[in-house]
């Protein structure tokens, strides 16, 4: 198994470092361009959620992202010390089939995550939120 890890701050500009991280690891692990795109999207949606809604103070917080690959199974683990929040408890948007006038703007990010990944789970451990996700990449 190979594992890579990055720690970012709760600052939206850190998305650029996440992109570099995924592209570098993706190349090293020979992931397809499509998988790199998908994992980048999943991380952007989850991390953006954490940065925008996870913290009530104005302090700097670390968010840890661990990615591992074993037998073509890619696993992601994201940890933050924000307030307890399970993003997967939020229901899927109900208006995907609705017409333009009826559609609300927003609510799509977590839906993408669930569509793209094979498994998504949440646990609270001590003062940390931990997200565990996996996807078969071949």
């Amino acid at each position: 198994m190979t594992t890579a890890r990055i720690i970012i701050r709760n600052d939206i500009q850190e998305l650029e470092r996440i992109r570099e991280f995924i592209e570098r690891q993706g190349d090293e692990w020979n992931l397809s361009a499509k998988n790199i795109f998908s994992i980048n999207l999943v991380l952007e949606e989850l991390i953006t959620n954490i940065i925008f809604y996870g913290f009530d103070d104005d302090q700097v917080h670390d968010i840890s992202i661990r990615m591992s690959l074993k037998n073509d199974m890619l696993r992601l683990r994201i940890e933050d010390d924000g307030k307890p929040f399970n993003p997967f408890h939020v229901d899927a948007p109900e208006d995907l089939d609705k017409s333009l006038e009826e559609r609300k703007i927003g609510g799509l990010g977590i839906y993408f995550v669930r569509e793209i990944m094979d498994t998504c789970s949440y646990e609270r451990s001590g003062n940390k939120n931990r997200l565990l996700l996996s996807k078969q990449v071949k």
Partner: protein
Amino acid sequence: MEIVDTLQDGVVILELRGRLDTTNYSFLEEKIMKLIDDNRIHLLVDCTDLSYISSSGLRIMLMGLKKVNSVKGRFVLCCLQENIREIFEISGFTSIFSIFATRQEAMKQF
């Protein structure tokens, strides 16, 4: 992301180049709002060189479509790369947007 805009036969063509994400979607939002303020309501968004989009980007596309429709304009997309097209499909956006394979076809809508 870079946005290149050109005016052709009364249609504003917006070429999006690079990545449309949470760090930069507001540039596109401002651009679209300014065009509508200037009464430029025939918009064609050319995604040939758009390599990535997240829900923040899609939200702005949806906002653009709604705003332009509300002033009886036209908001059309063309040339989506495969990965981007899939995200539109997952979102159910392919049924509410007018999406064309080529710029030429898209221009016929105006």
